[in-house]
C-alpha cells in the first residue's frame, strides 16, 4: 500500500504520539478547569510544551518527504492549524499568565489534529507541495489566518457564555474560572486584527502567485469569492464598532458564525476536494 504514514514506521509512530499528546494535554487542561485538579495543574504546562515540540518534530519528518515543503492538502493544513492554535495559545498563556481558556482552544486543536491524522492515514499518496515563496507565504498566512479566526470564534463563544452567566445570576464554575469579560474582549479584538492581517496576506500572495505562474485570476472562483467575503467581513468588523456603535456581544455572534462557517467549509472541502487547488494544478 502506497501511504506516506503506513510506509514510514517512525512517521507512523510519531503520528500516534502527537495525537495522544494532544488528547492528554486536553484532558489535563480540562481536569484543571472543571475539577480543579492540582496534579493536572502541575503537569498541563509541561504537557503543552512537549506537545508543541513533538508536533514540530512530526511536521519536520512529514515534510522531509517533499524536501521540507508542506503539501497543501486539507489534512496538512489541519495539522498546521492545530500547531498554530496551540502555539498561539502557548504564547497567550505565558504572556498573560492566564491559563483559564486553554481547555477550549486546545480541545479544538486536538480535534483538528485527530482529523488530520485520520485523513493522512487514509491518503494513498503524498499531496502536492507548494513551490515558490509566494505560495509559501499564501499557505502559511492562510493557516495563521484560520487559527486567528478560530481563536476569535472560541473566545467569542466564551464571552457570550460568561455574559449570560452574569446576567442570569449563575455564579458557578464558568463565572469562577473564566477570565473577565474585558480580557476576553481584548483577546477577541487582537485575534480579529491578526486574522484580518493574515487573510489580507493570503489573498494578496495567492493572486501574486497566480499571476507569476502565468495563470489568470478568476474572480468567480468560489474559493476566491469565499475568501474575499470572509476578508471583507473581518475587515469590516474591525471598524464596525467605532463606526456603527456595535457592541462586542453582536460582534461575538458574527465571529462565531464565521468560525463555524469556515470550519464547515474546510471540512466539506476535505471530503469532496482533497486539495484546495486541485482544479488549477
Amino acid at each position, binding site marked *: 500500500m502506497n501511504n506516506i504514514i503506513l510506509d514510514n514506521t517512525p512517521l507512523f509512530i510519531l503520528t500516534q504520539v502527537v495525537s495522544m499528546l494532544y488528547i492528554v494535554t486536553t484532558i489535563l487542561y480540562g481536569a484543571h478547569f472543571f475539577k480543579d485538579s492540582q496534579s493536572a495543574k502541575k503537569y498541563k504546562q509541561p504537557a503543552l510544551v512537549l506537545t508543541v515540540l513533538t508536533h514540530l518534530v512530526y511536521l519536520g519528518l512529514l515534510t522531509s518527504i517533499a524536501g521540507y515543503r508542506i503539501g497543501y492538502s486539507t489534512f496538512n493544513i489541519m495539522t498546521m492549524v492545530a500547531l498554530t492554535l496551540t502555539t498561539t495559545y502557548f504564547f497567550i498563556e505565558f504572556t498573560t499568565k492566564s491559563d483559564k481558556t486553554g481547555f477550549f482552544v486546545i480541545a479544538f486543536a486536538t480535534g483538528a489534529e485527530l482529523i488530520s491524522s485520520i485523513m493522512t492515514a487514509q491518503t494513498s499518496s503524498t499531496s502536492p507541495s507548494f513551490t515558490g515563496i509566494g505560495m509559501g507565504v499564501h499557505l502559511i498566512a492562510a493557516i495563521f489566518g484560520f487559527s486567528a479566526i478560530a481563536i476569535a470564534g472560541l473566545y467569542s463563544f466564551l464571552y457570550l457564555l460568561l455574559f449570560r452567566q*452574569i446576567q442570569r*445570576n449563575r*455564579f*458557578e464554575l464558568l463565572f469562577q474560572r473564566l477570565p*473577565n*469579560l474585558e*480580557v476576553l474582549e*481584548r483577546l477577541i479584538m487582537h485575534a480579529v486584527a491578526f486574522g484580518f492581517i493574515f487573510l489580507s496576506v493570503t489573498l494578496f500572495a495567492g493572486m501574486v502567485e497566480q499571476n507569476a505562474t502565468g495563470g489568470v485570476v478568476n474572480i468567480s472562483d468560489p474559493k476566491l469569492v469565499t475568501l474575499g467575503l470572509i476578508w471583507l467581513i473581518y475587515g469590516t468588523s474591525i471598524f464596525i464598532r467605532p463606526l456603527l*456603535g456595535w457592541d462586542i*456581544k453582536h460582534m461575538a455572534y458574527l465571529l462565531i458564525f464565521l468560525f463555524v462557517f469556515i470550519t464547515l467549509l474546510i471540512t466539506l472541502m476535505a471530503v469532496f476536494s482533497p486539495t484546495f487547488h486541485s482544479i488549477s494544478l
Partner: protein
Amino acid sequence: MNIISVGVNHKTAPIEIRERISLSEVQNKEFITGLISGGLAHEAMVLSTCNRTELYVVPAMHEVTGEYLKDYIISFRDARKDVRPEHFFSRFYCGTARHLFEVSSAIDSLILGEGQILGQVKEAYRIAAEVQAAGILITRLCHTAFSVAKKVKTRTKIMEGAVSVSYAAVELAQKIFSNLSMKKILLVGAGETGELAAKHMFAKNARNIVITNRTQSKAEALAEELGTNRVLPFESYKEHLHEFDIIITAVSTKDYIITEAEMHGAMQKRRLKPVIILDLGLPRNADPEIGKLQNMFLKDIDALKHIIDKNLERRSLELPKVHSIIDEELVAFGQWINTLKVRPTIVDLQSKFIEIKEKELERYRYKVSEEELRRMEHLTDRIMKKILHHPIKMLKAPISTSDNMPSRVDLVRNVFDLEEPNQSH
C-alpha cells in the same frame, strides 16, 4: 499534664449569653492573673471575640476540671442568673488542641473561612504572654495553631471568594472589568454599606470614585477618607450617569433613585459601553427594568447573595483538606506532648550515667596521667552515648496501639533503677 478548654460560642449559646460572658482586655488580664496567682492553673489564656469566649487552661490541681472552670468564669462575670454550665462546651487534651486549630483556621467561625479570627487568637496569646500566663504548653499550642492556620490559608481555598455583600459587589465588578483603576465609579449614598463597598473598591485599586449623598458633608468626609476628594451634588448626579462604568447605590428611599428612562439615555450617550449598577439599597434603589437594557448589568442584594452562597458552598468543599491538615498537626502536637512526659526520665537516665562515669573516673584520677584520664573520659562518653541511644529513642518514639507511654517509662526506670520522678508541672 492536661490542657482544658471551656467556653461559649455561636454554636453553644445565643448572643445574650455570649455578651454576658465576654471579657474586655482588662478583664481578660485580671481573669487569667487570678487563675495563676490563685494556684489554680500553671498556664491560662482567654480568647474573647464577639462570637466566642473560650478559656484554655493547664490546671495546677486535680480539682480544676471543666465544670470548675465554667463555674469560675460565671462567678467572675457575676452571670449566675443568666448563664448556665449547659451553655458551655468543654474539651480536654487533644480535643482542646483540635478545637483551637479549628478556631484558628476559621472553620469553627460563624462565617466559614472568615479572615479575622487568626488575628484574634494571636491577640489572646499576646495578652496571656504579657501577664506571663503562657507557659511551654500554651505557647506551643498557639504557635502550632498559627502554623495550622497558615497552612490552611496557603494550601486550601477556604478563604477564597467574597462572603459579604459589599465584597461580592467588587468580585462581580472584577468579573466584568479587568482593571478597576481605569474605571469611573459613582457611589450614591455615603452610609455604612456604601462606605464599605467604596473601601473594597479602593482596596482593588479603584481610584476614580465620585461620591454623592443627600447630606453633602457626609459625602465630602468619605471622599476625604478615601483620598479621592471627588463629590457630586445630589441634585445633579443624574446628569453625569453616562460618565460612569460602575454605579453603586446604597440609599434609604421608597422610590427608585435611578429610572429606566434615565439609564436608557445614559447608555445612548456612552454608546452602549457596559455598565454595572450594584444596587445595595433595601428597598431597591434602581428600577429593575434597567436590567433589560443592552450591556447593562443590574445586580441587587439578592443577586449578590447568590455569589456569597456559591462561595460558601465552595469553601465548605475545602473542609476535608482542612481537617487533614489539622489531623497531621495534631499527631505532631501529640508526639511533642509525649516527649514532655518522658523528658524527666530521659534527664534522670542521663544524670545517672554521668554520675556513674564520674565516680569511676574519680577512682583513676591519681593513677593515670592527665592525658590518659582525658582519653578515658572521652571513651566513656562515647560508650555512654551508645548505650543510652536506644532507650532514649524508644522513649521518644510515637505511641503505638500495642503499648503506652507509662509502661515504657516504668520499664526504663526499673531497668536502670531510677528514682521516682517529682510530680510537678
